[in-house]
């Protein structure tokens, strides 16, 4: 059997494996934009908390949500390997949760990502999530070198994204039903959220000035949620998440294997608009930080506030193959 190396195919696989964690609204796991906030006077069940966290992380509070390009400012993901080598990828992303017309009613959401730097420069990806959970998601990738669109299968939960410490399960694919949940308590968050410390406050290409570590969540009330995986022989046994008791923002997740802490993910959240008197879950990520304790590898995704926009008047046709084809190399 002859096995030929096909650069196009290789690049395609790379695209699927490195699609950003910003593409999140791809699995709804029984949660959608109609999920209501629990009553204020009662402590929700562990399962209910997991569903609320899913709601916040998939931006169901918005009709559409974008982290776009504003001039030269973009979202950037910085990876630092255990040897100290630093790489960065800039990207934009647009999510649409509003599909109500008769022809679109089978669609749950569509998500468009465009990469602007690194090996994936000029690559675009459009993901379609259907309301029918049995139906597979569509992954369409625009390959600039070939000037063609290719379709792909959904990545694995434990696939690392673009060499980062985040997996597809961490950021996109894991549904509340994939784990058993247990509420272990309620307390105050005591520490600042992590960053790549020697890059704090420094000017960085695309993102401008990188943020300082976020300490403003200290002393906020959080639930401790223990989530034990239902998958066999999995890379972690359980994880502990720190979840804001009001907004259901998950500030921190600790991953354990054989009762040893193996990985940490911190997320800094911000309310999109302080005047917005509505849903406390209408939040966005300001940054994600991940540390793999087994290797010392770090990842830091920074989303500058000025690139965030939501509920924009955009036609659904924006989330289509046509937009992918328009991407400039």
């Amino acid at each position, binding site marked *: 059997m002859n096995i030929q190396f096909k650069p196009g195919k290789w690049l395609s696989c790379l695209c699927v494996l490195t699609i950003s964690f910003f593409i999140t609204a791809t699995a709804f796991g029984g949660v959608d934009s109609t999920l209501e906030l629990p009553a204020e006077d009662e402590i929700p069940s562990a399962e209910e908390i997991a569903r609320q966290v899913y709601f916040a992380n998939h931006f169901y509070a918005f009709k559409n949500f974008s982290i776009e390009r504003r001039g030269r400012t973009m979202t950037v993901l910085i990876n630092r390997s255990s040897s100290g080598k630093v790489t960065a990828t800039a990207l934009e992303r647009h999510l649409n949760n509003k599909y109500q017309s008769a022809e679109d009613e089978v669609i749950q959401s569509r998500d468009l990502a465009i990469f602007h730097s690194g090996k994936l420069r000029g690559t675009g990806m459009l993901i379609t999530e259907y309301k029918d959970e049995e139906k597979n998601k569509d992954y369409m990738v625009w390959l600039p070198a070939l000037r063609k669109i290719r379709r792909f299968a959904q990545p694995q939960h434990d696939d690392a994204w673009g060499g980062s410490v985040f997996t597809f399960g961490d950021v996109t694919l894991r549904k509340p039903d994939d784990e058993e949940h247990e509420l272990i308590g309620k307390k105050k968050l*005591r520490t600042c959220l992590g960053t790549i410390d020697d890059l704090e406050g420094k000017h960085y290409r695309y993102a401008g000035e990188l943020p300082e570590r*976020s*300490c403003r969540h200290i002393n906020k009330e959080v639930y401790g949620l223990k989530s034990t995986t239902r998958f066999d022989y999995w890379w972690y046994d359980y994880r502990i998440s720190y979840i804001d008791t009001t907004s259901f923002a998950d500030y921190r997740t600790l991953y354990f294997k054989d009762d040893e802490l193996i990985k940490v993910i911190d997320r800094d959240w911000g309310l999109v608009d302080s005047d917005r008197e509505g849903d406390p879950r209408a939040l966005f990520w300001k940054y994600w930080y991940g540390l793999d304790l087994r290797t010392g590898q770090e990842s830091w995704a920074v989303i500058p506030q000025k690139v965030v926009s939501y509920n924009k008047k955009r036609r659904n046709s924006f989330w289509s193959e046509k937009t992918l084809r328009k991407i400039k190399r």
Partner: protein
Amino acid sequence: MRQIKLIQSLFLLSLLSSLSIGNQLHAMQSEYVDAIKADYHEFNSGTFEPPPELTWVGAVSTDTSNAGLAYENLQDFSLFLKEASPGSFIFYNKLPDQYKDQLHQQYLKTGNLDEIKKDIFKYSSEIKKQNPN
């Protein structure tokens, strides 16, 4: 022959040590991990015992009741603003307490310092209009 063996063993030693360094967390990461472990233990013990190094706890004192200043009270927020944006702080400092409280709460929710700066000038001009003298 002995020399070659010596060189070989030295090479192996240096290779092994470089591998182990690669797998170790650097000092700052270790401080961060110590802090989050201390935070996690509070779920079991019910009390927070800060780690020896306080850089990730946002505190300058070891007083656990006050651990984590983190702009939780207005005074801390004012100090933070003074350092982060001295120009805006001049206007902020002249605002009545109710406006300061409002800005503090807004910062805790949004974390958007640019928006806070805009609001400081907005409130300053509002007050100036109300009291032209």
